[in-house]
């Protein structure tokens, strides 16, 4: 019983790392632009499909496909931004409709290009077991991308809080008018946010492709997961995303181990609702934020 619990928590933590990768880009764009990119999950999935094509046609490993995925996903991310930048009124609400629609378009494009078949990597190395201390089991992909996730969370946090470009990004998110009056070009910082979100989505996509199976409708599910984690974390909190993602991961894993696999998603949702009821600003959010 104890070992089962420990294994569940270990798996949950690793899954949380992957969830964090999926959610970071959405949290970043929300935190800096007050825009919820409902096509973010599709960007993650797109990165996975590019890796799949690279594997099939170029015979390269999913890791080697990262630069290619990065280019494709960044281009699409910038395209999303260009379309968003044409919204002049009520950007917070209208961007929901725009990005939701873009998500549908992307899903169908992927359906056209890669068909509805379920795909997975042929590089079985990633799915082989990695055993920690003789008792805790996981796949190599999970461990690798858990570590990647930690590095990217730390890197993102460092970029936002310590670099001047990151500070400009936060300046625009904190107060767009005031930042402009200080000479900051909000468009530059916003494009930058989208490019970084594209980078994060790429890594999430490679983690997805090496660890799980993919099919076109998955993008939508990823977006929802990312959104839940972003809200759970407290909108815009980067370390909160990692902890919120782990909380969801652990809750799901414990539910799978001790209750039933079919209740996995329900458990995550219940946790989410409980947090919304008890702490509407999210686990690490501020009481109020000024826009």
């Amino acid at each position: 019983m104890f070992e089962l619990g420990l294994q569940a928590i270990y798996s949950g933590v690793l899954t949380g790392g992957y969830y964090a990768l999926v959610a970071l880009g959405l949290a970043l764009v929300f935190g800096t632009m007050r825009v919820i990119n409902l096509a973010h999950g599709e960007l993650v999935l797109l990165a996975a499909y590019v890796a799949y094509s690279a594997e099939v046609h170029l015979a390269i490993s999913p890791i080697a496909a990262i630069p290619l995925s990065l280019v494709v996903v960044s281009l699409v991310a910038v395209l999303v931004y260009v379309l968003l930048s044409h919204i002049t009124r009520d950007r917070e609400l209208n961007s929901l409709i725009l990005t939701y629609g873009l998500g549908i378009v992307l899903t169908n494009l992927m359906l056209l290009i890669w068909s509805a078949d379920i795909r997975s990597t042929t590089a079985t190395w990633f799915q082989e077991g990695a055993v920690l201390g003789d008792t805790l089991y996981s796949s190599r992909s999970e461990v690798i991308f858990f570590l990647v996730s930690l590095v990217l969370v730390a890197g993102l946090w460092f970029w936002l809080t310590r670099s001047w470009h990151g500070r400009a990004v936060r300046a625009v998110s904190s107060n767009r008018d005031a930042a402009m009056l200080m000479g900051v070009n909000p468009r530059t910082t916003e494009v930058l946010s989208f490019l970084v979100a594209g980078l994060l989505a790429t890594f999430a996509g490679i983690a997805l492709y090496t660890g799980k199976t993919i099919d076109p409708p998955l993008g939508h599910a990823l977006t929802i997961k990312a959104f839940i984690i972003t809200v759970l974390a407290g909108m815009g909190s980067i370390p909160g995303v990692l902890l919120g993602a782990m909380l969801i991961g652990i809750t799901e894993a414990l539910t799978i181990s001790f209750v039933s696999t079919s209740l996995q998603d329900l458990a995550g949702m219940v946790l989410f609702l409980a947090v919304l009821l008890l702490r509407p600003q999210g686990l690490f959010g501020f009481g109020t934020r000024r826009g």
Partner: protein
Amino acid sequence: MLRLENITVGFGGLTALANVTLEVGARELVGLVGPNGAGKTTLFNVISGLARPKAGTASFNSVNLLRKPVQARARIGIARTFQIPQPLHELTVRQNLIVAQTFGAGHRNARRIDEILDFIGLKRKAEENAADGLALSEHKALEVGKALATEPKLILLDEVLAGLETAGKRQFMQTLKRMHQEAGLAIIIIEHDIETILALCQRAVVLDFGKVIADQTPEEIFRNPAVMRSYTGATPGA
């Protein structure tokens, strides 16, 4: 230096500014007065780029302002403060100034930041978070500091003295005077308090219902019956 001609701004059916023409030279200190809703802040918004006029022209050192976005105007030397302080939350007081310097002035100079901190009296609070830990007067000082850090030629002050107690007000006015004299800035200041305008400015412009109704010395302004009527709703001595 700043030249506005026939600036007209409307929000829906409401005309906020009607044919406002105004010229401000280098090193001038101009008071902008008028009752609430007269269009004073809207005029600042037009100059800084936050509001777009329906008609009229605006130039700054012969550069057409209306074609430039807000951040570009900040970089050519127009700075402003807000009536309600708008610090960058999550950053410290010093970081607020450095962001303004890095992007507004286009270079980094740590000594200049220290001078500004000294000047606005926030040296001791430099490492405090700008969102909390500052009193109102300190928030107002930070507004001025951020504006100064962009190395402006013209600075627009929107009721920086409002809400301060008398001692704080007097101290702040000294800071403004020094700023004007030492840094050689042109300043336009929105202020309700007649004595402040009399003490600070060489020239006062009165806005009422979006129109310039007087442009004289402060002494003349406050003897002008039309001004006093719009300002207080009564004629002097009545």
